[in-house]
């Protein structure tokens, strides 16, 4: 599983383009490559879901896009502007078009400001006159379902988790951004509140003509909001494609294992497959070859040796895997067909990966 490769990119039309992004953190124990050569595009009006377990680099990537965290190398552009090269002054102007909401909504609000000031703060920085600011902040509170008369003068500590997230959304959208990056926006909320926030975001997206990057570990939540989905593991891209197709017929063994780990509300079939063994390896010393090879039920000798490049496995579906989970006949790429045929001869391995192919693949 490799992030390297550009087969899945859509180039010119994209609102957000990320190319060969590397984010490294230096720790006492060595350098951690949290994001390791990842590229992706988001088209205007699209919601891209980014999923993966902790340590896969999804949050580092979200922060790098808004330049809130450092990036080591790579290119990021939004609406044609190179974010990685912009100076602070340009960045300040660019951030008007790029806003973010966080998991800990309460923690992202200034505890000493009133709700209305919080919502209007971006507008103030942008030089909008006071009267106009007030009017727009009031409108935004209405939009997110908070009665302005009741909430305008409240302090963040008087808000519930769901209300705080609504304020954060109002603040982000007050500037009418083009791009909204959401990092685990609902994972701290109760189910019933989570449903309210997800519905609200779905309602606001067309109204504000938004393009969304939605980062979350909860696969069910990501499915409900995303048009396309990017699955990550240990800093690398595993799979990319239309969200319904990826969920219904994953081609990367990691995507499949991840989906099969989500419990279903069904007493008869709580899980659809066998569990994944082992733990996520330390990002300080990632495995050679495919980073998932050590845990992959379909891994072959080659996987630990060479890093697979991302390629189109099915039409519109991209995966970085030597042995994708799809029937050979469906594979457009001759390499992939050969690989799938290879897999039928297990070469003395005890795993017979063809036995694990999804039905209907």
């Amino acid at each position, binding site marked *: 599983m490799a992030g390297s490769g550009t087969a899945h990119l859509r180039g010119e039309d994209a609102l957000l383009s990320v190319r060969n992004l590397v984010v490294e953190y230096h720790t006492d124990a060595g350098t951690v490559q949290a994001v390791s050569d990842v590229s992706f595009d988001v088209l205007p009006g699209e919601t891209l879901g980014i999923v993966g*377990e*902790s340590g896969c680099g999804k949050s580092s990537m979200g922060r790098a896009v808004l330049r809130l965290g450092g990036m080591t190398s790579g290119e990021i552009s939004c609406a044609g502007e190179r974010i990685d090269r912009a100076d602070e002054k340009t960045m300040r102007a660019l951030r008007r078009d790029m806003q973010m909401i966080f998991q800990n909504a309460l923690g992202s609000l200034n505890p000493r400001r009133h709700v209305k000031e919080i919502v209007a703060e971006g507008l103030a920085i942008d030089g909008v006159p006071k009267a106009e600011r007030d009017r727009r902040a009031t409108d935004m509170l209405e939009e997110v379902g908070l009665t302005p008369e009741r909430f305008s003068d409240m302090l963040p500590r008087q808000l*519930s988790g769901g209300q705080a997230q609504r304020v954060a959304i109002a603040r982000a959208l007050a500037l009418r951004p083009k791009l909204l990056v959401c990092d685990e926006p609902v994972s701290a909320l*109760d*189910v*019933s509140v*989570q*449903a*309210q926030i*997800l*519905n609200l975001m*779905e309602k606001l997206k067309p109204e504000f003509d938004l393009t969304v990057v939605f980062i979350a*570990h*909860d*696969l*069910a*939540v990501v*499915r*409900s*909001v*995303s*048009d396309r989905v990017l699955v990550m593991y240990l800093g690398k891209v595993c799979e990319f494609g239309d*969200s*319904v197709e990826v*969920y219904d017929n994953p081609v990367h063994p990691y995507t499949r*294992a*991840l*989906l*099969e*780990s*989500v*419990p*279903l*509300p*069904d*007493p*008869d*079939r*709580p*899980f659809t*497959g*066998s*569990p*994944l*063994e082992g*733990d*996520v390896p330390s990002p300080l010393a990632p495995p050679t070859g495919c980073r998932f090879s050590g845990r992959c039920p379909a891994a072959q000798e080659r996987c630990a040796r060479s890093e697979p490049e991302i390629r189109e496995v099915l039409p519109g579906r991209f995966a970085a895997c030597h042995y994708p989970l799809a029937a050979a006949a469906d594979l457009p790429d001759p390499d992939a067909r050969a690989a799938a045929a290879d897999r039928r001869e297990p070469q003395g391995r005890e795993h017979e990966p063809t036995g694990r192919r999804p039905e209907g693949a």
Partner: protein
Amino acid sequence: MTEQSSSEQKDPRAVKPEPLLHVTHLRAYLSSRHGVVKAVDDVSFEVGHGEAMGLVGESGSGKSVMSRAIMGLMPRRSDRTGSVLFKGRELIGLPRKEMSEIWGPQISMVFQDPGRSLNPVVPVERQLTEGMRRHLGLGRSEARGRALQLLREVGVSDPERRLRNYPHEMSGGMCQRVMIAAALACEPDLLIADEPTTALDVTIQRQILDLLRRVQRERNMSMILISHNLPLVAGRTDRTAVMYAGRLAETGSTRQVFESPRHRYTAALLAATPTITHERHSPFRLIPGTLPNPVKPPAGCRFAARCDHFHGPCHELGPDMTPVAAGHHVACADPVPAPAAVGARGGEHDGR
């Protein structure tokens, strides 16, 4: 687990085998700045021998306070009344010294955050052997041998090396395995697992849930699995209890509760829960409003103000549950109509 409403059944133990845990009219009130929080307010249920019960509810439902009330781990300024009969012995009012003989060999607990519930400055070996040496009177090498065996049982590779580890040297999933091993060390009859996988990644969560269910069955131990995540309980329990605002809303076999929820709250909560088969961009069904004030809960059904089927009798509803099917009880004045018959027992089937 079957709850009794005190009024309709005089002495249930006369007709049924005595359950392992029998909770009646349990109340756990906590003092706060805003007044007395009625975290658990008149809850009755049972857990049978070898039975796994799921306890689900959103934050503020009282599920965690209830587990602590059973364990006798209540904060200082709190009040606990009612009855908690464990193997026929009343735990409420039991002196702390006698209670400490129950913690471990009788009832033990696994918490949400394994990193914080393990002692950070004590190696794994001592955390595992401490209880065995104290409660089971084992010698040092004997306890060590059992610790190794336990670590193998919970799927820890290279257990010899792990015994020398400190919690910070292990991943979250590994810490939780050690925590489970420690909870199993003295062979408890009841294991209470309070959100045991909430801090873990989804593939690790799956491993831990499989592990808990396996040891629960192999040891014929009883288990209460507490979670805010309904699907998580579905495949791992025999019975399920749904809690809302300090009271039980619904109890039944896990199959009954998930396949034909009868309480309006259970049905609404299930409809609001995202699943990986949820249709893209389609809105979730909402539960309007918020939890009632736990200091002054409303009279009658506590869900009434948020319920789309509420009417007059809801305000007079007591805490007692009424049967809607064999082993299936709800506290609802206007339950969801019953679909076709659903099995009264069983949760999951084993053949995956």
